[in-house]
């Protein structure tokens, strides 16, 4: 073989190698438009090569589970008010101004809860004096919940605050640093915080609320402080319907109660109730949205035996939120009762719509959970779909309601369905 022929052969060999490499690359790039079909390691190599050549292929990310114990508020806020320039401005759930106001308060509230210490009891009078301080921020919740749970839901550990049930928080300037007040069940507490007073002042810059007044200034006697619009009280009318228990709603409930959604042990009774049975646990889902869960001696989902009150409530709230997601419409769940002994706990929730309680029939609670020896043994839920429409109702002014002994606005379904107009209750 001549020297020229040898060079040509070497060139051909190199060309074959290059063409094979090009083919491999093109093959991977072609395949990479369907990344799910690639093994994870190969996907990363292709991603890197694709990126080098300007390709748009992104390898699926490495996903780790959350390591955080997260908590939600067991009772959503329904009013925020700020004392500004000597007058009270209110932001309410029923007029749609609450979310913006509450979002502005949350970080400062978290820092106050996180740095609270030196808890002591105070009188209602002292609380009201603080509430009328310039710059004071009042936060009302739709029901009582442990103070420690509010702290946890804001991402701070609750070493410095107790588990007292509260439904009102107040951030008041203390001269240098903010004083945190909490109220619930007729008790009033005061705590020092490490948050500078100066952080209160700019919280509501650029927004203004409705003219508002504390219930004590409107003539309500013997009630916990609340904030109402000073003059006109206009609240949306709602409609209530039975929840449509679609297949996805049923599997959502099964999943929330820790049951296998692919279970074959499912049947429908003659009245349309769907049953799922698994390891001694029975879940009955009525066509009208009535849910009954019961667990035998060894069945049922469990929670940590050493769980604090906040953990027990969060356990039930998470099941309720997850199981009713997309089913209850504009309604939110609010803690209505919590009783606990060494071996048994009962947790009850009710509906809140537009920041007002909604009573189903004669009942305050629409969901009840029983936990015995660290296991969920019983649960009953009445699922309803609530929709808040465009129409609103002009209610009796708060000052007039106070005169005739009425105490709080609420929705009463009377056990039926259809349009529900808000009313004052005794």
């Amino acid at each position, binding site marked *: 073989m001549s020297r020229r022929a040898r060079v040509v052969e070497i060139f051909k060999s190199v060309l*074959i190698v290059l063409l094979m490499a090009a083919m491999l690359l093109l093959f991977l790039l072609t395949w990479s438009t369907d990344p799910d079909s690639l093994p994870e390691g190969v996907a990363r190599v292709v991603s890197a090569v694709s990126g080098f050549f300007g390709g748009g292929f992104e390898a699926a990310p490495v996903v780790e589970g959350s390591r955080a114990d997260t908590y939600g508020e067991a009772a959503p806020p329904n009013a925020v008010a700020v004392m500004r320039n000597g007058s009270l401005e209110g932001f309410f759930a029923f007029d749609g101004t609450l979310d913006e106001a509450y*979002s502005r308060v949350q970080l400062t509230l978290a820092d106050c809860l996180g740095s609270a210490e030196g808890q002591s009891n105070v009188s209602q009078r002292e609380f009201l004096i603080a509430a009328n301080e310039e710059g004071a921020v009042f936060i009302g919740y739709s029901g009582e919940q442990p103070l420690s749970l509010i702290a946890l839901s804001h991402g*701070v550990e609750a070493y410095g605050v107790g588990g007292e049930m509260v439904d009102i928080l107040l951030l008041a300037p203390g001269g240098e640093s903010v004083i945190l007040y909490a109220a619930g069940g007729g008790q009033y507490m005061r705590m020092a915080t490490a948050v500078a007073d100066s952080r209160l002042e700019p919280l509501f810059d650029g927004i203004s609320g409705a003219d508002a007044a504390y219930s004590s200034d409107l003539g309500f006697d013997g009630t916990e402080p609340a904030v109402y619009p000073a003059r006109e009280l206009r609240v949306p009318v709602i409609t209530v319907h039975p929840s449509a228990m679609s297949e996805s709603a049923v599997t959502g409930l099964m999943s929330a109660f820790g049951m296998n959604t692919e279970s074959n042990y499912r049947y429908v009774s003659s009245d349309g109730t769907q049953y799922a049975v698994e390891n001694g646990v029975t879940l009955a889902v009525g066509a009208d949205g009535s849910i009954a869960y019961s667990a035998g001696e060894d069945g049922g989902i469990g929670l940590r035996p050493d769980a604090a009150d906040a953990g027990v409530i969060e356990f039930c709230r998470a099941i309720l939120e997850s199981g009713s997601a997309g089913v209850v419409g504009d309604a939110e769940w609010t803690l209505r009762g919590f009783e606990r002994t060494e071996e048994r706990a009962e947790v009850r929730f009710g509906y809140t719509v537009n920041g007002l309680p909604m009573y189903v029939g004669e009942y305050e609670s629409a969901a009840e959970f029983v936990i015995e020896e660290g296991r969920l043994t019983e649960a009953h839920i009445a699922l309803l779909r609530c929709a808040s429409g465009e129409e609103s109702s002009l209610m009796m002014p708060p000052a007039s309601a106070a005169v005739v002994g009425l105490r709080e606005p609420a929705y009463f379904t009377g056990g039926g369905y259809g349009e529900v107009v808000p009313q004052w209750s005794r």
Partner: protein
Amino acid sequence: MKISRLKNIIIAMLLAADLVLAAVLGARAFESWRLEEDAAARASEALAALGAEAGRDMLGDEPPPLYMVEIERDLAAERALAETFVGTGALVRDGSGSYRIEGERGTARLYGAGRFEAEISAPAACPDAGTFIELAGLGGIETVTGEDTVTQLVRGAPVFGGELALDIENGELCGVSGIVLLGDDYIIDGTPSKSLDAALLSLAEELHDAGTPAGKILSAELGYAASLAAPGYMQMAPTWRIETESVGTWYVDAFTLESSARLR
């Protein structure tokens, strides 16, 4: 000679295969480009009907998606940052999730939700934010700097609201305040963030329904915003920050498409 011919055949086959694969890739790339152009045109029309105007270049130029992440906070790192400026001192628990460091050169506070404050009584020489990053030892975390601000980046994306404001007077650092979250970050949900088209349409519709149309969209950026705090952790949700001509800056959650004029 036989080997030489065999090589010729192999070269011809490889060349043919390469050409076919290149053609497939090219066709796919063209189809993808065409679909993106169509989508951008449709989004532009839909936005216009809702009183919003976004440039085609903005709609057709999407950054890579982001994912929900969680940051496991590192108190030791946050303490080290504080001590850089106020000097070493005892860590005093101010309450449940808040700490105070009374250092030789000032006082620093670390709050549960990631807020950091330092008042420096003996100011350190620090002419700009770049020097601050060097001094603070923040080289290990990604940041972008303004004149007197440092914004944290997570996985290459800015943390909206994750900003430290520097109080620099005559080239000396007198104070630091803001939010910085030091610690490990990891993805907790593999669902990619929604596109800018979807975020813009959602925002434009909301503003249109509220009677305050967005007008011209000046800029849009995908980053992270704090979504949920848990003791020792912070979850960050991919969020679009959209600057409008008529109604200022809005934030749109890139998962739920809920919009807000303000961060939590």
